[in-house]
């Protein structure tokens, strides 16, 4: 039974999504409850799965009994299982938040709205578990198509942002598929564990190098790595308040996970192509993203835009961590990925509460409601500590391990990039707090209603999680070191 857990984890949201339009045909309001129940079940199963993987080793799930290299294989190792716990918990929180903020004028289409959210969650589960390059492509596209539709739900500017996202995202997916077909033409296999034995002898082939470049560019568009980030800020800013937390915390991070898998599980990370180590290239990309993302964030006045650019710079910091090529850097990078997902979810919850409850969109407006909104200000302070990386938040320990890894590798440019990005993060949060605590003459007539319970819950849980992740960082990093390291690191 326990080796079926990965399949169950995927089938739960998929089955709920497919059956929802039929089950909720008469009773629209059931759709919310069914989604929450599904995600709650996923949280339980994913924790069971993580427990199982820790105690009995990784699970290799061969679909319908067709073993590698003939069949499709899923790999539930430590890394995927940890990410799955994160995914289901944040998905559940996002759904709870959605309950009170979902667009009101949807009417009967609310059922399809929840169907799309569940479909997105199941596709992300598939990306995390996939042990097959083509399988990865299909799930990437299912996740992307659901995100385009969910962003478009808001109407207005969101339609145009979603269209741009669609054009760029599809270009990325096509490039990824092109890279996969190059690699397939050379090696004759699509399975990651099968390909890892064949690739090292083929690195002089231009087809392999070209294929890898296409795959990396494709995935870089999906995870909004600078300079392919232009779709993200608009898409996440104009997306419905209820959807941006789920998208920003999960979609880009899971695409990043796919990239980590290809670098470490398909390629042997220590290889060099034409005497250039690929990890060096990756760390340069990360450095650029960390600094440029944070600098662009400095210029933003819109809350969601600011947080979106912050997320882009943090993708860079995670990449700097995983590209150091040693255990400390890798586990620090993955730990920072967990933190960043929680912080991004929290920040977009915050932006959602600010808009839905107080009608605030920019940081200037935030100053006018600051003192009347204790929950908002409190959560913002905790999240700012996490984003800047001050102890005792998880952000601090993530950056700490990344810098230790970079020092171990003697990569001082990476250390400087992490520090510079931290300073820039500090700068834009100082700007936010300056607006909040400045004595404002124009008092804002905030609609002073009681904050709904779901807002308090989501803000409270994410703020608490940022602190708890920091306090238990030692044991989590140890767990990642014991169970989530790639082979040969």
């Amino acid at each position, binding site marked *: 039974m326990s080796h079926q857990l990965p399949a169950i984890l995927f089938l739960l949201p998929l089955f709920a999504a497919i059956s929802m339009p039929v089950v909720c045909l008469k009773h629209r309001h059931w759709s919310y409850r069914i989604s929450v129940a599904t995600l709650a079940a996923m949280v339980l199963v994913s924790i069971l799965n993580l427990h199982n993987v820790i105690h009995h080793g990784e699970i290799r799930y061969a679909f319908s009994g067709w073993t590698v290299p003939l069949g499709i294989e899923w790999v539930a190792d430590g890394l995927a299982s940890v990410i799955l716990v994160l995914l289901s918990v944040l998905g559940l929180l996002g759904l709870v938040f959605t309950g009170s903020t979902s667009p009101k004028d949807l009417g009967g289409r609310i059922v399809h709205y929840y169907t799309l959210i569940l479909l997105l969650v199941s596709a992300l589960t598939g990306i995390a578990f996939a042990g097959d390059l083509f399988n990865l492509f299909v799930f990437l*596209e299912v996740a992307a198509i659901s995100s*385009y539709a969910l962003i*478009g739900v808001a*109407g207005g500017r969101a339609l145009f942002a979603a269209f741009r996202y*669609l*054009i760029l995202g599809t270009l990325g997916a096509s490039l990824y598929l*092109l890279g996969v077909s190059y690699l397939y033409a050379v090696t004759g296999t*699509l399975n990651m564990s099968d390909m890892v034995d064949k690739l090292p002898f083929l690195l002089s082939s231009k087809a392999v190098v070209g294929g890898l470049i296409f795959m990396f560019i494709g995935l870089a568009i999906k995870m909004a790595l600078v300079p392919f980030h232009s779709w993200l800020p608009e898409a996440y800013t104009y997306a419905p308040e209820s959807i941006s937390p789920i998208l920003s915390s999960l979609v880009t991070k899971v695409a990043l996970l796919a990239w980590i898998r290809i670098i470490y599980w398909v390629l042997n990370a220590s290889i060099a192509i034409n005497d250039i180590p690929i990890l060096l290239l990756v760390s340069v990309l990360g450095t650029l993203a960390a600094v440029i993302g944070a600098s662009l964030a400095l210029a933003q006045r819109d809350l969601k835009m600011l947080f979106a650019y912050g997320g882009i710079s943090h993708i860079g910091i995670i990449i700097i961590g995983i590209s150091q090529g040693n255990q400390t850097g890798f586990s620090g990078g993955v730990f920072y990925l967990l933190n960043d997902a929680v912080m991004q979810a929290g920040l977009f919850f915050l932006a959602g509460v600010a808009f839905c409850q107080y009608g605030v969109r920019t940081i200037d407006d935030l100053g006018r409601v600051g003192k009347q909104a204790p929950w908002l200000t409190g959560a913002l302070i905790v999240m700012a500590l996490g984003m800047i990386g001050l102890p005792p938040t998880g952000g601090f320990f993530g950056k700490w391990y990344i810098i230790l890894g970079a020092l171990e590798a003697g990569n001082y440019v990476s250390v400087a990039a992490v520090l510079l990005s931290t300073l820039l993060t500090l700068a834009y949060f100082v700007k936010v707090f300056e607006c909040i605590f400045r004595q404002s003459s124009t008092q804002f007539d905030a609609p002073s209603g009681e904050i709904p319970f779901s807002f308090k819950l989501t803000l409270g849980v994410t703020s608490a999680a940022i602190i708890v992740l920091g306090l238990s960082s030692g044991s989590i990093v140890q767990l990642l070191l014991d169970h989530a390291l790639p082979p040969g690191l």
Partner: protein
Amino acid sequence: MVDALLAILQRPNFLTFVIIFLWGFYIMVTRYNLVKKLIGMYLVQTSVIFFLVSISVKKGATVPVLLSTSAPVQAAIYANPLPHVLTLTAIVVGVATTGVGLALCGAIYRKYGSLDEEEILEKLE
């Protein structure tokens, strides 16, 4: 130079793929009409599918169904079914993406009364 040209001409499928891919990419980048952008996107997707099909061609091979269960299997006489299955899946993904794209175009047209990117951007300002 001549050698390189001859090498390219010996692989007309690669040449066709490159032409369709770049053509689609050019349309996506230069056209302002959103539906034309979608057409360019569809050309890019189709070119990749074309590439996948063209590298899996096998001359003189038959359908991958065993001709006889007693004789030893000769892989050389059967076509490889895998690239074709991949192609089928990629086509389905492409159709779904185009469908969502057209739906978005329709919604944009109802909202802004135009499909021209520049006009829409002017109205957004």
